[in-house]
């Protein structure tokens, strides 16, 4: 088996679809399957508008999922995103609120909106930098760090809003970005941004060195370092990247609802994690894809949408979600086992 002859034919025949693409295809299949199933069961489910809703309803968590997926692939968690969404939103409001309102919650710093946004982004990136500092410099497990920074971020948001929200005394321009509809459709700017971001992410992941390096780091950090990869700096960039996305999401949500709400994005970090894992990203790192994550989100969206259409009571909604996730995951593990048997 060690004779050169064996290899010549394999130049052509030896290639094999990677487990990654396989899983991704599978997730796509499951998502479509679920949608068709729901369409078959529910009267008005099968319509274009409903398909659109699946994406428009989830632009926020999908955007977060992009940063989270990249970090997962590199072998790191990011549970801070939910907190950052709240923080950046609250900050953007607080900075933009006019000074001297009737009560503490209605008076802010009165910055021009653009400046307010920039400063809010600064806050988000600060959390990202904090993550990087603790994970890269102090070598503390990312799950601990980001759990902590998540609470810190949300904590600051709660302090600024006294545990509530700020929604008065805002400039009219504040609601602009979040509610700007595009191409004469009802689709809003944030959704379009999400789609663009998704495409960019896929390109980076598949076609750029940056994406490749992420996989190497996730697959074997030690070997990556000994192969001359600057691990620390790369992970730092990933955390800043993720925090930036979360920051933007927070600002856009705040703009859409014209309020900075300290509980916004509560548990979103887990939703982002779930859709990534549901999309076939390996929690151990080194394996997964953004496209998978996207369809992981769609799977959940279909379930939620169907449950809402049926006006299910909470109890059945939870049970239904559990069953759906279970089936989706089983399909993956089972198919992969079948393939590598």
């Amino acid at each position: 088996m060690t004779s050169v002859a064996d290899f010549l034919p394999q130049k052509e025949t030896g290639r094999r679809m990677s487990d990654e693409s396989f899983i991704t295809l599978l997730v796509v299949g499951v998502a479509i399957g679920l949608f068709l199933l729901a369409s078959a069961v529910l009267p008005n489910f099968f319509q274009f508008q409903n398909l659109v809703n699946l994406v428009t309803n989830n632009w926020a968590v999908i955007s977060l999922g992009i940063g989270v997926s990249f970090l997962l692939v590199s072998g790191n968690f990011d549970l801070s995103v939910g907190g950052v969404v709240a923080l950046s939103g609250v900050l953007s409001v607080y900075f933009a609120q006019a000074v001297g309102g009737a009560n503490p919650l209605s008076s802010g710093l009165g910055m021009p909106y653009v400046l307010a946004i920039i400063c809010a982004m600064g806050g988000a990136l600060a959390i990202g930098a904090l993550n990087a500092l603790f994970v890269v410099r102090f070598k503390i497990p990312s799950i601990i760090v980001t759990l902590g920074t998540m609470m810190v971020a949300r904590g600051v948001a709660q302090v600024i809003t006294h545990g509530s929200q700020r929604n008065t005394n805002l400039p009219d321009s504040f609601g602009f970005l979040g509610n700007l509809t595009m191409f004469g459709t009802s689709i809003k700017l944030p959704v379009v941004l999400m789609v663009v971001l998704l495409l960019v992410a896929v390109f980076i992941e598949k076609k750029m060195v940056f994406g490749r390096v992420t996989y190497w780091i996730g697959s074997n950090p030690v070997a990556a370092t000994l192969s001359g990869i600057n691990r620390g700096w790369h992970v730092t960039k990933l955390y800043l990247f993720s925090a930036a996305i979360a920051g933007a999401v927070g600002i856009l949500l705040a703009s859409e609802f014209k309020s900075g709400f300290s509980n916004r994005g509560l548990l979103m970090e887990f939703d982002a994690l779930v859709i990534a894992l549901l999309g076939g990203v390996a929690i151990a790192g080194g394996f997964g894809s953004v496209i998978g994550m996207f369809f992981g989100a769609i799977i959940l969206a279909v379930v939620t949408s169907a449950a809402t259409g049926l006006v299910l009571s909470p109890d059945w909604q939870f049970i239904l979600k559990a069953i759906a996730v279970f089936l989706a995951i089983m399909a993956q593990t089972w198919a992969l086992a079948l393939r590598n048997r």
Partner: protein
Amino acid sequence: MSVHSDTFALELDGLSKEYPGVRAVDNVSFTVEKRTVHCLVGENGAGKSTLVKMLTGALRPTSGKIYVAGKNHTPTSPQEAREGGIATLFQELHVVDELSVIENLTLGMEKKRFGFFVKSDLEDRVVATLKAIEPSIDPTAPVSSLSVAQKQIIEIARAASSGADIIIMDEPTAALSEREVERLFGVIRRLRESDVTVIYISHKLDEIFELGDNVTVLRDGKHIVTKPLSQVNGRSELIELMIGRPVFQDYKPRTTVTDEVVLQASGLSNALLKDVSFDIKKGEIVGFYGLVGAGKTEIARAVFGADKYSGSIALNGKQVGHSPREAIAAGIALVPEERRTQGLFTSLSIRENIPVMNLPRMSAGGLYRSADEVSAAQEYVERLRIATSSIDKHTEKLSGGNQQKVVFAKCLFSQAELLLLDEPTRGVDVGAKTEIYEIIKNLADQGDAVAVFSSELEEVLGICDRIFLLFDGVVREELANGPNIDISHILNVVTGGGEAAVQ
């Protein structure tokens, strides 16, 4: 169905294991006599480890039967194998860093009642065995503080004191120094006297002849022969059996050595190294030889910037930065000591493993050229004759030796002008060894400089032009290689003797 006499400790009957693409073990049948040391040899990928894994229930055979002392033995887990009286020392390290040495030694063998441990003579027994092999290891120390070699020793001690009738050792000496190998052999012989059967796998043929009673040869998963070593005439025959062609590897003085210095290291010191200075010339192969803990890996890692050190390292007169990244940029590459944990991306394919050390060659403006990756992979798979069914095979599914070749390919791809090879042929078979040696020589002939860090004297003497002898973190002596080099002197120096030799 035939009757299976229990005069045999172990009997294999048409054993096979298939993986997609490979028949790792192909209808193998042979018998192992009681209280013998039965050696198992074969090229990388011959199927030795796979065979072992089936004997110990880590893998399920595709077909075939196993009989232990005449009784059918089909373990579904290492546990059952152990209860069936088979203890194993696997090729890869398997110790728990978080536990102490003693906890590791007793792991899985403790006496328990109602879910709690009860005192037994076990502790004393394992400690005794450990002391017999390596007295310097403290039983209460956390394993995380030990070296590769020491961890290996822990495993050996555990297997040896398991009280099993059959003990399988898959390349136990790969990480050991002569000193420790000698002690290990003592233990093995004692085991044999106390009616234990040892199945011994190694690529180091001298060990086979020194220790073994019988030998079984595998090739490409097939059983070639089983016979008493007394009837094998010398290495050459064994090697021919293994690969079907003779190999010679004795040093011939090389002509391409220039006297232009490529690497100049002076005054390297750190936790283990004491004021180490040396130089490497263009087109030269230098060897660093010493026992475990002598500082070989430390030197390699220091030069590569992977460990902290004081002192200076200059490549072609230019100082080299203190990180692997800068080292690689300057033109240095390292084949690390532990391929699985330090060299390979085991969850990725061969194709994805090769380019990592030379991204500029694979990309333009941040864009990655996947096409080049494929061609590069195919090129190196051929050049190093890596045994695989596809360049998309995950490297974790390659045999030990082929994994090493992939790591090698990584470094060659980086086109460095200085290669640091730490234990380059650890766990690599004779056939592949000669191939690797050829590659090394060719590199040197093309004008690259190569440093080989090895605990195999045969290897150092085989290919190196100059040899640095290390002991306890100090370069004790520098010798030019040649036909009439004094081996006993070398062994004397690296074991701490020969003070006179120090300048």
